[in-house]
């Protein structure tokens, strides 16, 4: 049965495919065979057979530990600017967020207390959350005014991403994240907490920002990486 496959197309073709699989053909000839492979299923079947046959030689490649720098560069190249853990169920992420949030929250409280508030437009916040994540440069402080039900987001750092939107999420305990809408990363955002969120909104609520397709997540759940997250704390 494999005979029929391998000889189909004539012996010359059979050789060419085997030579292609071995990597023996030079540039132009390699390219020529590749174009033919795209067009001719019989040749592709032959190529698959040769590759399978030859792959038993793979065991002769000697395992050699790669230098650690390769992984660092790879991770930086593929995942920079985005949360390292990237998934909602990563315990490590939530732990680091909690630790970071506390530190920034303390500073934010300091600023809040130290700044006199004669301005009637000043934002009277009862809750603060510092949103950040390891491996991401997005850092946002959220202030929540219980009286008005308003959340104000102030970006500490972070850049817009072409063809993407940032979306804010609220998470109560282990419940699924609920969208609070798309936000602008380079401007101050004032938003009202939606009625369905209001009941549970308070200390311990986690706020998170994910990177989504333009217009926000196409589903009702985050689809992109978390770039910042933090727990709300009473001021």
């Amino acid at each position, binding site marked *: 049965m494999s005979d029929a496959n391998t000889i189909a197309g004539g012996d010359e073709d059979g050789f060419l495919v085997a030579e292609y699989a071995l990597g023996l053909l030079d540039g132009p000839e390699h390219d020529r065979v*590749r174009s033919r492979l795209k067009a001719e299923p019989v040749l592709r079947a032959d190529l698959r057979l040769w590759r399978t046959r030859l792959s*038993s030689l793979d065991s002769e*490649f000697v395992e050699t530990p790669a230098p650690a720098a*390769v992984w660092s560069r790879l991770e930086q190249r593929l995942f920079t600017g985005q949360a390292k853990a990237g998934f909602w169920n990563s315990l490590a992420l939530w732990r680091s967020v909690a630790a970071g949030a506390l530190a920034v929250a303390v500073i934010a409280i300091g600023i809040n207390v130290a700044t006199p508030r004669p301005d009637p437009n000043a934002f009277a916040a009862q809750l603060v959350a510092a949103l950040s994540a390891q491996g991401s440069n997005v850092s946002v402080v959220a202030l929540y005014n219980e009286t008005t039900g308003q959340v104000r987001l102030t970006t500490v750092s972070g850049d817009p991403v072409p063809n993407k939107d940032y979306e804010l999420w609220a998470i109560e305990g282990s419940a699924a994240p609920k969208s609070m809408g798309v936000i602008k990363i380079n401007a101050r955002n004032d938003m009202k907490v939606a009625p369905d969120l209001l009941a549970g909104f308070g200390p311990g609520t986690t706020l998170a920002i994910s990177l989504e397709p333009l217009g926000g997540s196409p589903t009702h759940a985050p689809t992109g990486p978390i770039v910042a997250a933090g727990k709300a704390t009473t001021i």
Partner: protein
Amino acid sequence: MASDTADIADMIARCALRDRQAFRELYARTSAKLYGVTLRILRDRSEAEEALQEVYVKIWQRADRYVPGGYSPISWLVAVARNHSLDVLRARKPQSDDIDMALDVADASPDPEQAEANRGERARIDGCLDQLDADKAEAVRGAYLDGYSYEELSERHKVPLNTMRTWLRRSLLKLRECLSA
């Protein structure tokens, strides 16, 4: 070993779903093997490291092209590393192996009969290589494992280029006959 294979196939599938933890595990499990491939073919540490990085970028970006079936997942990964290294050798045109990846997997239909036939092919090749003259088997190994061109092979074995081509073609013919027997 079977569970190893299943684990690696599972990690590749999770990479296709953008699971970074799976990618990290896949790298931890397979990078030594693939570094062995790029290092052997490119014979230069810094080039081999750079190639390894490119190989994993491809794996991350195109993990969805892996179709479980005839081709074992580690062979698929080795093929990506090997094809990339050969491309670097050939002309520093790393993108072209896009198509190689597609060719690797497009027809790798999860057909159980085919998978069985493939396993048989794998098991028999060593015995078939042993039936070749030692230097001819060495030339096949040199082409596959070291990425030697016909020119390099003819230099190493001290035979004219055309002779080497004839040698290799005869060896391949014998291999095919042996494997199809």
